[in-house]
């Protein structure tokens, strides 16, 4: 069986050598390729040399499993996330639908503010708040919320754009307001440092989260606590 699984990873390696590498991250490589005749994004998690091999294998496997579970859970609830085409558990490789013609919310905000600082991005902040509220109401905690982990595809016919959540590798299922509060705190930090002077925009995001979620008051209470803790920590140094 060992030889057999080496054979699969040979096939995968061969396939990846033809694919276009679009991101070399700390945990994974992301490629673009055609798969089963469709534009596909491949994400391969690789071993971390400093971790014990068995532990590393377990952790990597868990992240792969968590990622596909959370995608399915979101989709079942009508929250857009890429279709899963294939999971190679031996090589920790996930084959996902490519959201063709999309840009990251990060790039969209940056380029909009660059080209016309007066353009109102409030609608987008509201969309993000809504989708996160729905995700949290399904008890999915993303674990790595940034504007790079959201894709925006501009509508072809109706002009409506569609917002997708991606990169669920650190996600987990939890009903605890604390976990959701931390999720929002991580986003707040990332959002305000990636997009300077957007405090008002982020407030709009939170407001629409509150309007869309049935459990927002407990989550916001935790968010406040986490902010306070963060501030205290930075005061201590």
């Amino acid at each position, binding site marked *: *069986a060992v030889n057999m699984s080496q054979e699969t990873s040979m*096939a995968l390696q061969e396939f990846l050598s033809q694919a276009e590498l679009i991101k070399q991250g700390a945990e994974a490589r992301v490629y673009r390729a055609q798969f*089963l005749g469709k534009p596909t994004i491949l994400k391969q998690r690789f071993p971390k040399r400093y971790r014990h091999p068995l532990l590393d294998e377990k952790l990597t496997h868990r992240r792969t499993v968590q990622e596909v579970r959370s995608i399915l859970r979101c989709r079942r609830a009508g929250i*857009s*996330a890429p279709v899963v085409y294939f*999971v190679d558990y031996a090589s920790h490789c996930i084959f996902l639908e490519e959201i063709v013609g999309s840009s990251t919310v990060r790039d969209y905000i940056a380029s909009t503010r660059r080209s016309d600082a007066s353009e109102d991005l409030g609608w987008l902040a509201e969309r993000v708040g809504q989708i996160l509220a729905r995700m949290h109401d399904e008890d999915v905690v993303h674990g790595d919320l940034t504007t790079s982990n959201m894709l925006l595809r501009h509508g072809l016919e109706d002009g409506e754009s569609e917002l997708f959540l991606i990169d669920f590798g650190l996600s987990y299922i939890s009903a605890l307001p604390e976990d959701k509060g931390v999720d929002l705190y991580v986003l707040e930090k990332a959002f305000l440092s990636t997009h300077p002077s957007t405090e008002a925009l982020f407030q709009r995001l939170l407001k629409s989260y509150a309007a869309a979620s049935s459990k927002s008051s407990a989550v916001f209470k935790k968010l406040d606590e986490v902010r306070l803790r963060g501030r205290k920590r930075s005061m201590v140094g």
Partner: protein
Amino acid sequence: MHSTHELELFPEYKVTQMLFKDVQNAAELRQCAVEGKIKGALINPTMVLVAANKAVSLQKMGKMKTRSLFSEIIFNLSPTNNISEAFKRFGSSDGDDSVLVVLVHDKDEPQLLSDITARVSGRQVPAEDVSTLTDHAKIKKLYKIPPQEEKCGTLLDAVVCRMATKDVM
């Protein structure tokens, strides 16, 4: 008429789908165990590719849940891990008048295809037409697809996601 797709991940394999309608001899076909026969109505060519790719991958790892590549394809189409249920729903049965034949082979094999055609007494139609046989209501029920899921994609997307991830759900 038939549709052939090379498995990008395993380029030494091709998957050919041949669809027949008005089939008179389904029982006979089953008897002589034409390789990998699948009932229409519940499937679509993309689902077959997803199932075949996964079957080849598991075969190479020695991790198939069933005894042959073809039974594995049928098993992979099913939303549950119950093998006999998968055959009941996705294998062909004696009274069927539509049969989809799925072949996994290494190169273009015209001989293989004409052998199949000769054996089926029925009318070959374009393999893509299998989608026109799709029973949407049946699919939604079998794969337990809630209405709101169709807001973020097609029925096919929903089915493919479930097929691809059922082993860890």
